[in-house]
């Protein structure tokens, strides 16, 4: 019974994921695309819960669906009507080449994984309840991966400074004109 329920949740989340992903790239109004991406991120958070990554599911909803998407929506609202992006005409061989390239990536990934990991993917390791909780993730992040933690903080600092510089430069130029 619980088995069927897990599969059901998995399929609903996966279909939600793929459907909202297609919606993101097919709407002409970026506002709708951003809303669809929130659905995509939420269904990914459900999948993370199924993979017993509770802390990352919470972080996904807080950081992505909360902070990042609000930033996106603010910028789209700021840009206004100029943000509308209907599918431009252009040569159709470009579109065909893009679809072919994307399909090649898909086949490539599936073949590479299938060849290198063939029969070993079916038996997952057993994990205890604490796996993926904040204590577990935090302990590994702050001991084994301390350097990655520090580099992440520097990357965030550089990005924040860069965002401020980009914003104030543009304002100065707009005021000068």
């Amino acid at each position, binding site marked *: 019974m619980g088995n069927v329920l*897990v599969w059901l949740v998995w399929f609903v989340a996966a279909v939600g994921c793929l459907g909202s992903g297609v919606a993101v790239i097919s709407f002409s109004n970026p506002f709708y695309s951003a809303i669809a991406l929130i659905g995509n991120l939420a269904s990914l958070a459900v999948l993370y819960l199924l993979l017993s990554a509770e802390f990352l599911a919470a972080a996904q909803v807080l950081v992505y669906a909360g902070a990042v998407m609000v930033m996106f929506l603010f*910028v789209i609202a700021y840009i206004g009507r100029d943000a509308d992006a209907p599918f431009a005409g252009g040569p159709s061989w470009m579109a065909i080449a893009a679809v072919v390239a994307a399909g090649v990536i898909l086949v490539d990934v599936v073949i590479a994984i299938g060849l290198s990991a063939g029969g070993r993917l079916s038996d997952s390791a057993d994990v205890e309840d604490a796996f993926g909780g904040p204590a577990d993730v935090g302990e590994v992040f702050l001991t084994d*991966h301390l350097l990655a933690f520090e580099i992440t903080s520097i990357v965030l600092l550089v990005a924040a400074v860069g965002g401020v510089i980009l914003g104030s430069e543009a304002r100065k130029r707009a005021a000068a004109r």
Partner: protein
Amino acid sequence: MGPDVSWYIVLSALLFTIGSMGVLLRRSPLIVLLSLEIMLNSANLALIGFARHVGQTDGQVFALAVMAVAASEVVVGLGLIVALHRSNVELDVDKLTTLRG
């Protein structure tokens, strides 16, 4: 048992394909950024799937780092888009051919 890791990997590959099609097909930098988010998240799904498969938390830690990088990328990308909009450049990645302001 629920779905094993191969289901998650196939889903992750499909999501990555959708994201890359968005990057390749669309001209608006905003939608290109949104598609990049889809690609980063598909990589995260694969990382977390494999972390569960081998029963170690390291993959989840890496996924957290990817989230931080994605947030930084959004800040810089949106800053660029706002700067382009303020200097009255048309928002079309095919027409952005010069780096000079």
